């Protein structure tokens, strides 16, 4: 047994796959220990906040210390962030209409452009042929760039409780900075939020864990059924073999996805938890394992070491346990990994079709995909809602397939060089 493990770990492919999988597993286990927030808590008001570090604006203004930093190009950056390229082009368009010669307008020079704008823009001016919507747009641009070039700070005022009058309470200069570690409320959303306003990353970590669990449960069930039926059919043979073969063939001709959908549907929305889905996937995907195990056992059954074991008076159970199982164990282990990765994909398939686990406490990779689909994240370009999920599914199945390929090279003498 130890020898087998050493052999497996001598394969580079197996080790690579194993490291990727263990990395994911470590993330699943460690992340909730460090960040204790419930993964499905709705924290954002609004949908699809982009990934980033969210700093409380209130707290940053009220930060205990402010630091003055004189950084080059701070003003230019500020202007550039406010004044987008399309706005500049629009401004130029308006200015040309207003009678400024086109060659005098340089949209790359924000300073000049803004001066020209301030001199010429008149919100009341009616331009011929311009829609009202377009006029409103220019008014909005004008409002946005008001005071953009001013070097003054912003004044913080508090309302007097009695009179309601504003009184200056402080000023924020343009060169004022706060240290983010001194701001009490900061939330890192590495993958933003989803349509319900939940942290996508926390959700993803939990979903990987749940999906792996579904995969393992389904894989163990499928491999267990497959192994038992395959051993019976292969070793006992005769009528038992015929019956098992008949059942296997029936399952084989019906596409397992159809079967999966029908069973999931008939189980009903109410009782379809993550575990139920895992069981349903497990009981529909044992067919290939059965076939493969049966074929292996049939070839082993007539081997001389089995005959010798019989001649030594060993019981049926002892022969299966001692002379058959150890020989196919490496194969069954590979089949198990394959089943796990297939089950994870099957869960994703089912969930996208809306037949996945009915749950509001745990996410799965499939459910995350489904939510992203329903809220059209892919059409709105909110990549963070679905792309990391895709990557995770790919990474899990890739690492598992890599492990199998590695094991195959170790255990299958024909592929060994």
């Amino acid at each position, binding site marked *: 047994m130890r020898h087998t493990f050493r052999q497996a770990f001598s394969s580079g492919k197996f080790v690579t796959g194993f490291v990727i999988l263990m990395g994911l597993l470590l993330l699943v286990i460690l992340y909730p220990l460090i960040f204790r927030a419930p993964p499905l808590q709705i924290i954002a008001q609004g949908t699809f906040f982009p990934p980033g570090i969210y700093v409380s604006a209130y707290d940053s203004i009220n930060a205990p210390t402010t630091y003055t930093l004189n950084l080059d190009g701070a003003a230019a950056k500020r202007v550039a962030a406010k004044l987008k390229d399309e706005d500049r082009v629009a401004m130029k368009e308006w200015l040309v209409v207003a009678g400024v010669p086109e060659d005098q307008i340089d949209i790359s020079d924000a300073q000049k452009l803004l001066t020209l704008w301030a001199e010429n823009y008149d919100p009341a001016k009616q331009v011929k042929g311009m829609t009202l919507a377009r006029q409103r747009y220019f008014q909005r641009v004008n409002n946005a760039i008001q005071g953009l070039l001013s070097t003054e700070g912003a004044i913080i005022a508090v309302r007097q409780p009695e009179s309601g009058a504003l009184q200056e309470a402080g000023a924020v200069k343009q060169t004022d900075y706060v240290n983010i570690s001194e701001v009490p409320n900061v939330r890192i959303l590495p993958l933003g939020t989803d349509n319900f306003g939940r942290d996508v990353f926390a959700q993803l970590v939990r979903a990987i864990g749940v999906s792996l669990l579904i995969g393992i449960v389904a894989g163990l069930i499928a491999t267990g059924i497959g192994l038992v039926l395959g051993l019976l059919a292969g070793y006992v043979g005769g009528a038992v073999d015929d019956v098992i073969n008949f059942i296997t063939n029936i399952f084989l001709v019906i596409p397992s996805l159809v079967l999966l959908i029908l069973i999931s549907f008939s189980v009903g929305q109410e009782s379809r938890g993550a575990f139920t889905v895992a069981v349903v996937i497990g009981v529909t995907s044992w067919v290939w394992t059965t076939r493969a195990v049966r074929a292996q056992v049939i070839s082993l059954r007539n081997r*001389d070491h089995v*005959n010798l074991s*019989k*001649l*030594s*008076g*060993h019981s049926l159970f002892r022969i299966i346990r*001692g002379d058959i199982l*150890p020989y196919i164990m490496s194969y069954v282990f590979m089949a198990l990994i394959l089943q796990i990765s297939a089950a994870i994909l099957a869960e994703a398939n089912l969930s996208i079709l809306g037949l996945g686990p009915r749950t509001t406490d745990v996410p799965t990779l499939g459910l995350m995909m489904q939510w992203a689909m329903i809220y059209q994240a892919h059409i709105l370009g909110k990549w963070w809602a679905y792309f990391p999920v895709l990557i995770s599914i790919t990474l899990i199945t890739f690492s598992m397939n890599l492990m199998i390929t590695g094991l195959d090279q170790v255990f299958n003498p024909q592929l060994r060089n």
Partner: protein
Amino acid sequence: MSMNEPLRPSAPPPQVGPPPQVGREKQTCLSGTGVTKLFGFGRTKTLAVDHVDFNFHEGEVISIVGESGSGKTTLAKMLLGLISVTEGDIYFQGQKRDISSSRKKQEYWKNIQAIFQDPFSSYNIFSKIDDVLLDCIRMRGGQRLPKEEKVKLMTEACSFVNLKFAELTNKYPFELSGGQMQRLMIARIFLLKPKILIADEPTSMIDACSRATILDYLMKLRDEVGMTLIFITHDIGLAYYVSDTVFIMEKGKFVESGSADAVILTPQQPYTKRLLNDVPKIYEEWDLSTV
């Protein structure tokens, strides 16, 4: 061959007629009437063994000779009770053989044992040499013996085939060479002391130099235990060398049988003649014009 016969061993006059033991009363050990094995059904039906009758006497060395596909291995497996008999009866020591339950089978296998062709696939690669030998002690009812007694038995069995148990204990069979594995197989038989031993091509996978050793141990074992030895082989030369009685098998049937000298030196059936004619020899000329 025009050259002088080189170094030919002085040939005794060819013995025609019954083998030497005919003088005393021979006890039938294993016999069968109309033994048949049919594989598959419908169009894929193949008759592997076709109504064969045989009578193996106690203490004899018997060879069943046939080419691949002649059904000799199937017959051997039926004799061993590893596969069922489609039709016909096998009698063991005059009684109709009954292996209907696993208990009866275990009882039967105390009397009949086998050595297989390929020593490399005859052992479970996951169990140690000790387990193989301890199984034999258990089968002889010695599972309650004290440990020293068991080790003594195993050591004795190993030294019978010139192996040292002390060097083998806690090792796995695949750590041995082919010849050593086959010797260990004989040590196993030595412990079991069955009445009948079926040796299915016991020397075809090992080197010529070790062949004599294996055959010597088998013969020594037969003399010691007094068992009936049944060789299953494709090598007609080996059959001639080791056996008292030879059965020639073709397409599931015995075409010729009798004492080794009678069958090999004065074959009657065309198949036997052809077989003998096609085997390369070293004293007689090998006539290539007859194919």
